């Protein structure tokens, strides 16, 4: 794929990719993870071979990059791993958002953080990114059966947690 074509594809996916990076990694590291994923695609460390849709493939790249980023967290604390200069350049700015939207994001982040990682990821891919279970399984590098199990368990657990969440009524109103 040509670099210009790659860039166009990545740009079209950017907002969704950022949402996926938020789900895969520490929200403070999401943009850095996304930048590292772009870099992997650009310098050929991640190569699209057309075995799945571009979106599914790129989400797999972001997921792997987020995992590597988590592994480096300890080394980063010890300052033994170089920091990316982009972190200093592209710190997300403060954006005004409504109180309800802020509360909704925080409540959902809090609730989802209580789920196991695989359950959280499959729910995000299906409900947030609107992928099918097969596509979600491909992005997560697991079998469809495994993805289905995580999906069912995650859905049930999330339902229970939302019942206990004090802002669940607001969440439902916002979601309705």
């Amino acid at each position, binding site marked *: 794929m040509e670099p210009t074509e790659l*860039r166009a594809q*990545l*740009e079209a996916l*950017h*907002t969704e990719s*950022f*949402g996926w990076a*938020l789900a895969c990694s520490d929200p403070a590291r999401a*943009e*850095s993870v*996304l*930048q*590292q994923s*772009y*870099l992997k695609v*650009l310098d050929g460390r991640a190569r699209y071979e057309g075995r799945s849709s571009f979106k599914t493939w790129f989400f797999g790249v972001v997921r792997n990059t987020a995992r590597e980023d988590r592994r480096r967290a300890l080394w980063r604390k010890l*300052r*033994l*791993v*170089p*920091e*990316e*200069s*982009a*972190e200093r*350049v*592209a710190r*997300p700015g403060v*954006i005004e*958002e409504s109180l309800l*939207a*802020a509360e*909704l*994001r925080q409540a*959902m982040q809090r609730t989802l953080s209580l789920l196991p990682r695989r359950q959280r990821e499959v*729910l*995000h891919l299906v*409900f*947030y990114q609107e992928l099918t279970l097969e596509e979600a399984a491909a992005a997560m590098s697991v079998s469809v059966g495994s993805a289905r199990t995580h999906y069912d368990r995650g*859905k049930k657990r*999330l*339902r229970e947690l*939302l019942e206990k969440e004090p802002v669940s009524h607001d*969440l*439902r109103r*916002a*979601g*309705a």
Partner: protein
Amino acid sequence: MTSDERELKSLFQAVREADAQHAPSFARTWNAMPHRDRLGYLRALMVTAAFVLVGILATVNAYRRREIPPQQLVQAPVAPPVAPAPVVAAVPATAPVTRPKAAKVPSSISEWRSPTASLLDVPGDDLLDTVPTIGTSGSSLTE
């Protein structure tokens, strides 16, 4: 899709819209692509080099210690000069003072005799010194 799933989906979509407001622009993310911090690599390299150096020094030291003979490593303590025994006043002056006899030093090794060699002497030693022949009586051996 069940009603439960529809409700969850609508919740996630609301979060998605909120996230979209926070998402940085593609141009900003793209233009601020990470560049590796050279100082960070240098620091990691220096720490690794320090560990390697310590390892080499420890290995060399261990080899050197193994090559030195043990008697040089463990110095035998020098015995202090023995002070003369104090004279005991309780010993009567008339008591005979016996001194251990100095061992007789043989002039050559062929003359040397073990101090316990006499214990091996038995009365019939002379019988064993001679070889009996057929036809001689036992009484003639003693003569």
